[in-house]
């Protein structure tokens, strides 16, 4: 069957046609009904097997659209490598976070520091090294620009189900404190850990939509 007319010939509204009626209900009405999430329930539609079948078909054609595009996308695995590299290169070259975490001047006329982003990366790294943990958010509370000023580290983590939680917080504290001691001069007075999520042992890729 050939596709319908070109767009340029289209009148202002859908052309009425006997094909558009399902058990006396216009297809457009079924479309709108589906868009509304089938609420409020319409007994005329829900009571008609033909209408319910049509609703199923409408649902299916929507799902298949996206699925077919994903299927096409999956066919050529290396196809996107180039623009993805370009993207990551651009991101790497971007504005350096202006807020730096300073270190004591090693000599007159010399200033050394880490960026806040570097420190957050360190925190993620330290936390990820704890088995079954993925760090999802990091925060430094306190004035990081003042030497010796007390700083609290806040971490939000995702934990794999089964990992003992009591030991976890301690392990994270040890890891984080050690990393910051090695790479910064921050005076870390506390490490607060929030367990944001517990996930099953084999989490599915793609996750929830």
């Amino acid at each position, binding site marked *: 069957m050939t*596709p*319908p*007319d070109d*767009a340029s010939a289209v*009148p*202002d*509204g*859908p052309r009425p046609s006997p094909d*558009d009626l399902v058990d006396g209900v216009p*297809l457009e009405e079924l479309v709108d009904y589906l868009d509304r999430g089938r609420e409020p329930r319409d007994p005329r539609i829900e009571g008609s097997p033909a209408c319910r079948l049509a609703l199923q*078909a*409408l649902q*299916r*054609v929507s799902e*298949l*659209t*996206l*699925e*077919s*595009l*994903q*299927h*096409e*996308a*999956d066919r050529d695995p290396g196809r*996107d490598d*180039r*623009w993805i590299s*370009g*993207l*990551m290169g651009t*991101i790497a070259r971007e504005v350096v976070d202006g807020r730096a975490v300073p270190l004591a001047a090693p000599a007159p006329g010399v200033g050394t520091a880490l960026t806040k982003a570097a420190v957050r*990366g*360190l925190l*993620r*790294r330290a936390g*990820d090294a*704890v*088995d*079954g943990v993925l760090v*999802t958010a*990091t925060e430094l509370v306190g004035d990081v620009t003042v030497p010796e000023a007390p700083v609290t580290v806040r971490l939000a983590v*995702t934990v794999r189900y*089964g990992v003992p939680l009591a030991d976890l917080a*301690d392990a*994270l504290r*040890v*890891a984080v404190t*050690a*990393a910051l001691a*090695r790479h910064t001069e921050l005076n870390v007075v506390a490490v607060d850990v929030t367990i944001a999520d517990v*996930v099953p*042992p084999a*989490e*599915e*890729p*793609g*996750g*929830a*939509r």
Partner: protein
Amino acid sequence: MVARTGPVRRDGETDREDEISTDDLLSATSDATLAARAADGDTRSFELLARRHGPLMRVVAGRLLASDADADDVVQDAFLTAWHRLADLDDPARLRSWLLRIVSNKSIDRLRSRREHDDVDEARQAATTPAPDDVVEARLQLDAVWRAVDRLPLQQRRCWLLRETAGWSYAEIAEALDLTPSTVRGQLARARRFLLVEMEGWR
């Protein structure tokens, strides 16, 4: 992976083993977790999201623009925007829908700028889009649907994709494509009718 009670690593050191397993773990991680890490500044997590969803975005852009060449530009730009706006994402679990929205917005921007600059003759542009491979018989329904969507006239295809992939309203589609909302409805009705027949016909 065996659950240990913590590595008690000295001085922030990590094993090579842990390096590998973190990356493995990341590849199998949900969109929501990756999006949260990316919002925290983790470029590695963002790259994994780009690899996971980028191909679909690129295909959608390609179909909206009727140009595979422009698609790469548009999708790269879309992900760059996404990187900057991650903090705006209310529900990280709805990452894919959010990305689809961004990429379709960028595609429409590109279409608009083509119109303004009168750069490309749209009909010619549509004609030069490579046709799907008709030589190979479509063994999968998905292939058949892909080809059917591709056989829609350009205007109908755009309306259909904006509606079905990115959830645009009739008013939004109308404004983007310079049509009236009732024309959009008409285009969608035609596209839907054609696709329903194609879908049924395959069975």
